[in-house]
């Protein structure tokens, strides 16, 4: 569950996997690399594309910065 000023998002599955890695330490590239490794059967470029779009959405809501 992510709480922000006027709402909350319940994240499950891959969304959660991504956000749990947004810890202020890992870089964007590192997060992608980790997840590409973890979900090795999926096309790495698709993983990069999906995660970029997801993180952009979160940044638009000002939930993460990168």
């Amino acid at each position, binding site marked *: *569950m992510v*709480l*922000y*000023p*006027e709402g*909350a998002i319940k994240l499950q599955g891959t969304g959660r996997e991504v956000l749990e890695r947004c810890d202020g330490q890992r870089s964007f590239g590192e997060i992608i690399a980790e997840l590409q490794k973890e979900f090795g059967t999926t096309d790495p470029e698709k993983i990069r594309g999906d995660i970029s779009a997801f993180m*952009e959405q979160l*940044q*638009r*809501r*000002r939930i993460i910065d990168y």
Partner: protein
Amino acid sequence: MQNYPITKLSSPLALIAEVTHRCPLHCVYCSNPVQLAGTESELSTGDWTGVFQQAGKLGMMHAHITGGEPLARTDVAELVSAARTAGLYTNLITSGIGLNDHRLAALMGAGVDHIQISFQDSREEAANWIAGAKAHAHKIELSRAIRKYKVAFTVNLVVHRQNLDHLEEMIAFIEQLNADRVEIAHAQYYGWALANRAALMPTREQVEKGVAIVAEAEKRLAGRIRIDSVIPDYYAKYPKACMGGWGQKLMLVNPAGKVLPCHAAEVLPQMTFENVRERPLQWIWEESESFQRFRGESWMPEPCRSCDHRAEDFGGCRCQALLLTGDAAATDPACSLAPKHSLIESAVRESNADTSGKGATGGSSFVQLQQQNAALWTYRTNPG
């Protein structure tokens, strides 16, 4: 009293903690009730700690600590800490007046998650005129102090007839404050704002221009500042989904401990609101007559009862229905389908017929503005 069956009742999402009605500002659009709760009746630190604990257990996620001016209480950091300990995301809604470096550090130490500061205008004299107090410069200073900490920061800007003509300038001003999020909120006509409606209500042209300016700013600032804005309900086709439905999402505890489904509910006649001093929050949420009175659809009159929008706007706002039609169970007159919609139409007509009285004239001081416009509006007073 008939029985209002509850089919599926979920937990409330958030607690609005109106910790005091005292305020150093006198904003003419204040949504606090005209009958303010007195200082003597305020809940103690211990009472509030108990309320936050109950809210956490009830499954609530957010605590919005507001007022009046919450900083008028000396124990705000303790209240924040109590809300955080109860597992709540804690939002402090403040004018900033009463905040200094020392108190800010204490709030951060207490774990405040988010601070929201309201601005009345981008122009100092006009802002002070609307607030009825010299507050603007101090707010800017505090916004800078807040940005030194890692805390989510929202700037709230209330817009209306007197300031909408320079909305672009106000947005540019807010950009400099470096907020994560901006709320552009049209004044809503309850409490003090209803008393001052004629001076606050924008023209249709102002509203339409405003919508375009906000849309442009949203695009330009995407990824940097999030903008949340709402169209004023007097100019909308359907009413606002007030509080996400009566007794559906939120509970408000007022300074004296009264538990309300919304900010204005105390105006509703023949209703008894429970007090946290006497009843647990959970009982009030699940069992009290007041929270069940307009929950769900069984109370609805026509045209709401058979309307396709009833699950989206819940028939609009009960307090607005009462304030304008005299009947809290009427369809909100802001709805274009409401039998009493003519009440809104005539207010809109009046506001558009007379386009004078918009905006403070340049160069005037705060005191001059007050004198020149003495009859324009009534300032919010303070509780006894």
